[in-house]
């Protein structure tokens, strides 16, 4: 009996140890795939992007750089690829592009810029640029601007600067936020382009009689309705007021903001219903299918969403005048461009590429396949421009100032706060809700701007 107990105990001891050994070897085994994975990820790029090399190949001593791109939709991606292939041959720098999904890129920008960013990256002008420049995440590119400065007007220059007055962005294109309509619809029903608010409202009424949705409208994406706030504010209170509001130098409880919401209240019956559940593509489709008479949004969305066969029927007019003091002097014309992350590699070669991108030639290359944006270089009329693009250039240059859109003109957190407040306005555009919205906006602005 003792033999048995002892041998049992002994064997169980052996068993335990062999089990432990087994666990250890299993751990070692499992570490192998881990190492393989680590090897993979070290060669891949942060953000899980796909890598495509620029086609030029022969880099004449300029070195090579990587380019982080959020142009993930097929058409902008193709336009960007042709730009990069030209940059490779003109600047003599080999460029490989890492394309990351649009929204993912923006959501990760903070950790991306702090980690191992590419030599160059796509970004936006305005406050959204200054925000990251002020946190010391971008390199100033004044030396690039010494060479390309002559290609751009003062408004574009101002948009490319950080709060410290240094340049941080090379712009590539912008696009106007205007009222789109189908020429055939206006012709058939004998509508005329409204110049003033009263004409605009009576046109909306007429469209309702003609069984059309006057204004296609969507807000599920959150940002599109910010454009309506922007344009009403620009028309009623002017550009300076709008920018001061965006920077919280004017309180959100101000009477000017009340006026904007009151004006919007008047417009509500003519906007497409249940907008909070609709994505903007569906609203643009309602316009394209002629269920809707007009739609206020950026050409980068509406014109890009139109099929090629209907694009010739599409036309636009600037938002009608509300306050004669400001007439039609301003609009949102968001500008996109490229930044030089501070932690990127090979900045000298990257700057050569930026110098090329800051030329009219580069913009024309980019716009060859892009039929909704317009270049920002002075006097550029690319040979490939369609009617919408030609008219866009005129409309933007007719403005005394252009704003960038709320999510680029104010702190991103404030834009996020306004998205949910404006969605609540769309659900309940009553006067009592307007004052609630204004109060909440002001409370949140105070905490976000920490003043």
């Amino acid at each position, binding site marked *: 009996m*003792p033999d048995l107990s002892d041998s049992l105990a002994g064997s169980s001891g052996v068993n335990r140890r062999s089990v432990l050994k087994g666990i250890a070897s299993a751990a070692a085994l499992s570490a192998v795939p881990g190492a393989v994975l680590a090897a993979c990820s070290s060669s891949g790029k942060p953000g899980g992007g796909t890598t495509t090399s620029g086609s030029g190949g022969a880099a004449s001593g300029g070195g090579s750089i990587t380019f982080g791109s959020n142009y993930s939709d097929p058409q902008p991606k193709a336009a960007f690829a042709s730009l990069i292939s030209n940059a490779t041959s003109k600047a003599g720098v080999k460029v490989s592009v890492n394309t990351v999904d649009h929204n993912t890129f923006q959501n990760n920008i*903070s950790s991306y810029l702090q980690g191992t960013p590419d030599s160059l990256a796509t970004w936006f002008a305005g406050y959204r640029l200054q925000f990251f420049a002020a946190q010391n995440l971008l390199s100033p590119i004044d030396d690039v601007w010494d060479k390309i400065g002559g290609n751009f007007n003062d408004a574009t220059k101002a948009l490319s600067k950080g709060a410290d007055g240094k340049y941080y962005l090379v712009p590539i294109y912008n696009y106007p936020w205007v009222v789109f309509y189908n020429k055939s619809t206006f012709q058939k029903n004998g509508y005329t382009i409204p110049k003033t608010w009263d004409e605009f409202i009576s046109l909306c009424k007429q469209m309702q009689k003609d069984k059309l949705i006057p204004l296609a409208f969507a807000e599920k994406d959150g940002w599109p309705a910010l454009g309506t706030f922007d344009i009403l504010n620009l028309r009623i209170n002017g550009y300076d007021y709008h920018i001061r509001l965006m920077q919280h130098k004017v309180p959100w409880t101000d009477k000017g903001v009340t006026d904007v919401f009151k004006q919007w209240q008047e417009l509500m019956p003519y906007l497409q219903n249940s907008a*909070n*559940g*609709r994505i903007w593509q569906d609203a643009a489709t309602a316009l394209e299918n002629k269920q809707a008479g007009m739609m206020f949004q950026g050409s980068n969305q509406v014109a890009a969403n139109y099929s090629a066969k209907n694009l010739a029927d599409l036309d636009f007019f600037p938002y009608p005048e509300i306050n004669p003091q400001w007439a039609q002097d301003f609009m949102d014309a968001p500008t996109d461009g490229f930044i030089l992350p501070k932690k990127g590699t090979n900045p000298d070669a990257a700057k050569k590429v930026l110098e090329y991108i800051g030329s009219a030639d580069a913009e024309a290359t980019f716009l060859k396949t892009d039929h909704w944006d317009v270049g920002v270089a002075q006097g550029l009329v690319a040979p490939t421009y369609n009617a919408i693009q030609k008219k866009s250039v005129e409309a933007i240059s007719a403005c005394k100032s252009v704003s960038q859109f709320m999510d680029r003109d104010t702190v991103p957190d404030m834009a996020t706060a306004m998205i949910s407040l404006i969605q609540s306005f769309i659900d309940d555009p009553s006067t009592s809700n307007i004052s609630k919205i204004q109060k909440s906006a002001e409370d949140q602005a105070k*905490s976000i701007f920490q003043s």
Partner: protein
Amino acid sequence: MTSAATPAAGSGAGSGAKVGPAATKSRRRRRVRILTRRDRLVLAALIGVPLLLDLAFVWFPALASVGLSFTSWTGVGPVHLKSCNAFHTLPGLPKPGCVYGVQNYHQAFTVYPAFWPAVRHNAIWLGVFILVATPLGMLFAVLIDRGLRGSRIYQSLLFLPVMLSLALIGIIWEFVYAPDRGLINTVIGRNQNSNQIDWLGNPHLNLWAILVEACWRQAGYVMVLYLAGLKAVDPSLREAATVDGANAWQTFWRVVFPTLRPINVVILVVTVIESLRAFDLVYITSKGNPLRGLELLSVSVTQSIVGETQRIGFGSALGVVLLVISLVPISMFLWQAFRREER
């Protein structure tokens, strides 16, 4: 430790043959208590490694979140242990990470518009789980336990949603709820532009629509837990109750249900935790973009911390609030578990 038996204890089988029964008895007792260095090393590793992992991946992040909730860190640069008043930036441009006191909590409770709706929706979620999903799951379990014909098929069907990920459930139900081409609106003929019901967009409807999805899954989960419990109930209890003249209703509530007490505690804890960590369905439905009517604490935390600007301090404060709420059911469960062990 110094007794003569000690060396023998470690040397294993070799010396065992000559030891008498009395010695064996004492040795066996000691074997339990006295460990060799090797055993102690193994034990230390077995306890130490999980402890280290626990400290590194549970306690450190939890305590770091608590710490960060008192700062205004945006995820850029280091955190300074100085008050935010010591730093000056242009209004709106973020300050470096600095000590912000209880401002984050103050803002969450007073200014942040999603906070109280989120708390309310989490509470509604919990209420619906306790009052609808759990009784439903219990009913399914009792019916299946009675051995209806085809009960295995019912069991599989009802359990099927539990095997799907919540993200998948969200996508499946989107086909049911979609306003233009969804199942419900098509069947009831409300899919025209003028009369359609926006189940997932309307802030008065969407929480309830999502709760139907959540209960669809939760009921199956509860059912399986109760089924396990019911199978373990001694059949003689039921027989005794029947002999005593109890009807089915009385047998269940007076005899079977009280014996299910441990299962009930588990289900209560599972329900509370599931309703506090509710996130996936809402996130999938709103595509990461907050939909009004669907505010939840977990969604607010994610929204503050993930994104173009990261208000990590503020998001941590919301996370700490969620942690404090979660601690209540966790403590209840632990208290129950330890009390049972002591008995």
